[in-house]
């Protein structure tokens, strides 16, 4: 069963508030995350954050486990490539 977002689960972040007040390290981390998303690589932080929100009672996969799982999944039954 896939999770549905409840009102209380919404991230506190709202538009506009996200860009302000970030340290350089946070910006770099965001940049790295964006780059991974563009090339279609799995991102552990995204998974971890989300996992803690929706299944706080289940221990998350380790980074190593997650990476193996996600790579396998992406190419296992993914749609065909482009020309």
């Amino acid at each position, binding site marked *: 069963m896939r999770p549905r977002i409840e009102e209380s689960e919404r991230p506190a972040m709202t538009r506009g508030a*996200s860009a302000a007040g970030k340290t350089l390290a946070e910006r770099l981390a965001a940049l790295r995350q964006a780059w991974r998303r563009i090339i279609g690589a799995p991102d552990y932080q995204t998974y971890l954050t989300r996992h803690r929100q929706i299944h706080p009672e289940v221990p998350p996969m380790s980074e190593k486990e997650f990476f193996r799982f*996600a790579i396998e999944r992406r190419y296992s039954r993914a749609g065909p490539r482009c*020309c």
Partner: protein
Amino acid sequence: MNNKLLTSVGWLLVAVLGAFALGAVALNRGETVSSVWLVTAALCIYFIGYRFYGKFIAERVLQLDDTRMTPAVTRNDGLDYVPTNKWVLYGHHFAAIAGGGPLVGPVLAAQMGYLPSTIWILAGVIIAGAVQDFMVLFCSMRRDGRSLGEIVKMEMGPVAGGIALVGTLAIMIIILAALGLIVVKALGESPWGTFTVAATIPLAMVMGVYMRYIRPGKIGEASAFGVVVLLLAIWYGERVAADAALGPLFTYTAPQLAWAIIIYGAVASMLPVWLLLAPRDYLSTFLKIGVVVALALGIYVVAPDLKMPAVTRFIDGTGPVFSGTLFPFLFITIACGAVSGFHALISSGTTPKMIERESHARFVGYGGMLTESFVAIMALTAACVLDPGIYFAMNSPAAVIGNTVEKASQVISQWGWAITPEMITQTAKDIGEHSILNRAGGAPTLAVGMAQIMSAAVGGQALQAFWYHFAILFEALFILTAVDAGTRAGRFMIQDLLGTVYAPLGETKSVLANVVATVLCVSMWGYFVYQGTVDPLGGVNTIWPLFGIGNQMLAGIALLLCTTVLIKMKRERYIWVTLVPTAWLLICTLTAGWQKVFAPLPVGFFAIAQKYSDAAAAGTVIAPAKTVAEMQRVAFNNYLCGTITALFVALVVAMAVFAIRMSLQAVRNPNPTIRESAYQTRDPEVDYATAH
């Protein structure tokens, strides 16, 4: 008010600049035109198309609704379904749709001059290609990110869904064959190129091991290492090619390389994905984006002149690169750069699962395709800045211009492009190759064009050979990734189909079933690759039209779906938005299909087959075939290609019938009959995107 006025003036300026640039391109006959005009005209038209037509479709036709939840938010699992910043998603989507197609098609189409291709790439993307990508993305986004096949099944019934699956598989096989053949033709007798491409295999494996065992998940480190080694491999490749002992180790004929890529495809697609596929995929995506940006900058910095005429006499269908008249074969040949059916698969793949809000679909879907079209314009530019004599020397089959520089220069000079044997030899020498003759397939032509542009920007003459092999490597890298990933995808489709006949063959965990499906898939595309190297009439010139017809048919199927969906939403008044491109694609592909099946020589497959089989039966040999056995081979392959074309035509006609039936039902029903996911409301002020 002031702001509004300023915006209007800004758009007016873009329009005027675009019109002026297009005027410079279209009207400046007799003297050469700078490629900067071509690229500028394209950019202005994209901006205007996005701002006005894209907005119209988003707001009026689809009525995108930011108060409606997207699947990325409702199903957010931090893995597949992730709400994503629209710029990041645009990058992801572009990297997924950009491939060899928009690079090869325009290069081949350049034989008719730059103007017809430019007009179709620009008009096609605005009215057809971007509309298709955008609307399929919309359909999938409203259906929990379902795939094209599933949506067809939902909205048009299970038989239509089955037809779409068979059609997709057939087109996949043809595209894999065409891509494989492009690599083979580019690397034949080229030890430098072969060495660098071969080097990427162990390199990717080292990266794979590093990312799995040494520093798990550290993609950035592995990719940086990969890029450095890649550049070293290109540099070292020159020495390998010149080396008396190593050179011959990497020198292969085209049929040998065909076998190599067939074996490679079979083995690579059965290896674990982390070892070869994933690391090389990252590397190639990295390079893909880098090269597109570098080429755009290069064109603006160098501003090379277009040496190809605006229109050549080959619009009459007598061209050496592909046979057939401007209508319909120019449209079939350009394919992906204007409208690509394959994008319907990507737009219903990972992208719809990542859209943060509905209004982003316009930027990602429509905007992403405009960018792909821009890549096609740059590929066309790279081909047209070459000396036309060189262009035809590289792209004409041996059957037309022979195997020697003397014969080639004589034939091409007769066509009206003066070229000497020395010029051809010198071009080959400049790029560090023995010969550039008969290298049809787009990749080498594009590489020479790119090398000339890039070396004019950075490094001068001395680096031209380096840039050439860089460009070849860049294309080979993502083609091999596509061959690997495509063979896997083909295997799953074959298992789906086989599973319905005999259940154990559909078991994706069974090693035996995997091997059976993989071998089936590889032998289907492998057959065409091998025949393309031994059939005297075969090659990219023959397979590309088949690919183009298949690809445009898939686009036709996707647009038929979009039309049906619009009617089922009761938005009939906007139906022209999809009906116009659908009609055009069907007219083009059915005409091309009809001609490829029924037309006389030299266009019709059956006519060619008949000619060769009759002659073979009489025991005579027609050049370029040398033996009766070769004659029979030509005949058989043309019968085969003709049959596949007929199959494509049958598929699309069947889909059209289903679409008309469903649409008529929907028109009679006064209520919307669409099957979307339930509406869930959201606050448009909240930004769920996690990547900033």
